[in-house]
């Protein structure tokens, strides 16, 4: 092949790739392969398209033509007829009442609102002290607040009137983020540990020294325990910590030292409060409501039930019979009774077992029961993870000479929990949605509030708009949880697949 001249033309560079023949690329090809590959497939596609179209055709005009500004359902209907529309959603009810659906009857910070945005009428009414002071007339105050809220936009009230729950939820996000995403700096975890006290202070108010003293007391018990543990071993440390806890928070000898020095906690709190009196107005739990209630019950339940559930699962697998029996009994009893029954127990029957006159916070009762209920389920989910682990892993841990807690912490639980992620998140989503059941024990959850809103003369007879709004709120949260669980599974996927 040396006679180059005999070759008329030699291509020196590659041809650019030719476009595929028409109908063999892009959307067309995808559609042909996926939607119209066979007669059956084509028929199904057309059928589904028709179905989707007919559903959308009936829903979309209603949704998009919705009326956003109206004072009542009747007014909505008049506006609709005036516009000549066939159907139209009356979103005005959401526009007017969304704060109530989010926060229930949680009181707004009226002092802040009026001094920021309603200064002139406030001055006319006689200033802050005259309207909100201890000597003020409740009826006048409610009239004043009603007028003020009528004049301010809902968004202003949302941002400034509800700054406490808003700030609490925002800080909750900050506190939870380092736990959920390991790429964030670990120093943020310190704030996560502090958050429960910050959150309680913001939501419930009262003296700042209440949550602060509890935090200091818990820390003191912990450090006393650690101090003794170094000298007298783990058992001595544990006993010292429990003793310190009892001296701080409970009366160790109720029959001797009644109303005396012990427990230390209230005394320290009162002294600190008298030195630096600082706090927010206290808000009792029965004023909590709306979606905020679902968030509070849901988050506390989720955060508390995971550790309890893991301990129960380990206890159920324990070789010590007493621990095993206790755990099995707990799990089976809690799991074998419907949540609604436990809630009824919490709301009514518990009264009879407590000393008369003692009132046990309704919200706290519900949180405790929801936590116990979820932890029984988590325990079974985690047990599934533990059972899925080959025996070799347990034996490997033992052969390394690790003690029980170290082998669990370093080898068994990381693998078992990874397997259990979908089940755990599934339980959490269930728990979050079950918070609507508290409507039966007199707490005002979002669904209960839709009922209350419908009971007013203006909005009686309105259904879909309210339900859709509540559904969207819940969907947002549950969808996030589901996506996060998938992210976590992908991230922790270290084995071959």
């Amino acid at each position, binding site marked *: 092949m040396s006679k180059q001249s005999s070759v008329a033309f030699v291509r020196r560079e590659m041809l650019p790739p030719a476009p595929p023949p028409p109908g063999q690329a892009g959307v067309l090809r995808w559609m042909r392969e996926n939607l119209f590959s066979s007669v059956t497939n084509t028929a199904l596609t057309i059928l589904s398209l028709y179905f989707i179209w007919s559903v959308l055709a009936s829903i979309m005009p209603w949704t998009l033509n919705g009326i956003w500004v109206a004072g009542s*359902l009747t007014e909505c*209907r008049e506006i609709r007829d005036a516009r000549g529309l066939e159907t139209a959603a009356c979103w005005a009810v959401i526009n*007017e*009442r969304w704060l*109530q659906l989010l926060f*229930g*009857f949680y009181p707004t910070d009226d002092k802040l609102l009026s001094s920021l945005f309603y200064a002139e009428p406030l001055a006319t009414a006689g200033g802050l002290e005259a309207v909100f002071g201890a000597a003020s007339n*409740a*009826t006048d*105050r*409610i009239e004043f*607040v*009603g007028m003020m*809220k009528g004049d301010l936009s809902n968004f202003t009230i949302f941002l400034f009137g509800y700054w406490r729950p808003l700030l609490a939820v925002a800080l909750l996000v900050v506190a939870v983020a380092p736990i959920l995403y390991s790429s964030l700096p670990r120093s943020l975890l310190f704030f996560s540990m502090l958050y429960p006290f910050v959150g309680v202070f913001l939501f419930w108010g009262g003296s700042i020294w209440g949550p602060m003293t509890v935090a200091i007391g818990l820390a003191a018990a912990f450090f006393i325990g650690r101090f003794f543990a170094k000298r007298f071993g783990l058992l001595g440390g544990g006993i010292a910590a429990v003793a310190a806890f009892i001296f701080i928070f409970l009366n160790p000898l109720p029959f001797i030292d009644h109303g005396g020095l012990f427990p230390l906690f209230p005394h320290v709190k009162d002294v600190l409060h008298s030195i630096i009196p600082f706090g927010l107005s206290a808000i009792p739990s*029965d004023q909590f409501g709306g979606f905020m209630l679902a968030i509070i019950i849901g988050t506390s339940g989720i955060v508390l039930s995971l550790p309890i559930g893991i301990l129960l699962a380990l206890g159920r697998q324990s070789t010590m019979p007493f621990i095993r029996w206790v755990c099995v009994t707990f799990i089976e009893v809690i799991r074998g009774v419907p949540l609604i029954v436990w809630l*009824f127990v919490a*709301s*009514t*029957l518990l*009264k*009879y077992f407590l000393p*008369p*006159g003692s009132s046990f916070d309704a919200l706290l009762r519900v949180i405790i029961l929801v936590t116990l209920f979820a932890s029984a389920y988590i325990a079974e989910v985690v047990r599934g993870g533990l059972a899925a682990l080959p025996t070799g892993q347990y034996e490997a841990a033992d052969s390394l000479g690790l003690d029980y807690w170290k082998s669990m912490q370093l080898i068994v639980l990381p693998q078992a929990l990874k397997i259990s992620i979908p089940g755990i998140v599934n339980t959490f989503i269930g728990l979050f949605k079950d918070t609507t059941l508290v*409507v*039966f*024990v*007199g707490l*005002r959850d979002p669904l*209960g509030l839709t*009922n*209350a*809103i*419908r*009971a*007013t*003369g*203006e909005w*009686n*007879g309105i*259904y879909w708009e309210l339900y859709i709004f509540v559904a969207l709120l819940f969907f947002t949260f549950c969808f996030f949880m589901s996506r996060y669980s998938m992210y976590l599974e992908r991230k922790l996927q270290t084995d071959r697949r």
Partner: protein
Amino acid sequence: MKKSIFLGTLAVAGLAAGLASAQTLAEVQARGTLKCGSNEGLAGFAAPDANGNMQGFDVSLCRAIAVAALGDAQAVEFVPLTSQTRFTALAAGEVDVLVRNSTWTFSRDTDLKLDFKGVNYYDGQGFMVRSDLGVSSARDLDGATVCIQTGTTTELNLADFFRVNNISYEPVPVQTNAEGQQQYLAGACDVYTTDVSGLAATRATFEDAASHIILPEIVSKEPLGPVVRHGDNDWGDIVGWTLNALIAAEEYGVTSANVRELAAAPTDNPEINRLLGTEGELGAMLGLPNDWAVNIIAAVGNYGEIFEAHIGENTSVGLARGLNAQWTDGGLMYAPPFR
């Protein structure tokens, strides 16, 4: 109802164990607020406005009791209760008084160890149908499908009525009034039955209210009233006579507008004078200040004013006085004499 009776019995068992307190008034005053068991939401009777303040016919009675006990109409904590939990909550002491459109019946008054302290609204069960059904009497409803709330006395009344008239019906069970409205409007049932006050409120929300009629038959007696626990008669007296004061005030023409003026000096009518405390010491007999009734009427108005403001003919509920008119106008509202 079964469940509530069961829970109520449990509650009563607990009370019998000596956990009840007989000092409700002192407790309320120490607490500074009245805990009033109320409906979670019933048009005209109890509903929150846009600012979260409760309004309504039953709510006003709660406020009146709060004025009597504490002198402040706003010092009320409203505890929302379902029809299942209401009596248990009252028996367990979670609320001081229950004003939640509860029907006064024999077994509730005796077996549940509760005390009904009067009637603030005489209700009765009725039927609503589409007018194009061509029915003018409930006796023509043979073979009709009926939407009925389960677990209420209305379910039993319905069965009784159809059996007595020897006609048949097909029940469509619904859980709540909201569901009942939807089912009825969707045509799942020909007839919707519940208390007439509820029917009127429901009908008022319909787009074409004129094409639905409420049949003339009232098939049950539903006297609704405030309830307290057995065992604290002093507190029961305060609740009962607060209601009576509201009713008597209307009878004697004492309104929120003129009550201060009438109370300033004794009038010609000794009955008004005793009610308003310008004559005699009636307040002291209840353990209350002598001008207790004046404060109540000034704060919430008399019975007629409350009725007109929340469920009267000018409201969206639009109820006529009917049985709830004063006895002098042919109704059943009749307050015992103040002497």
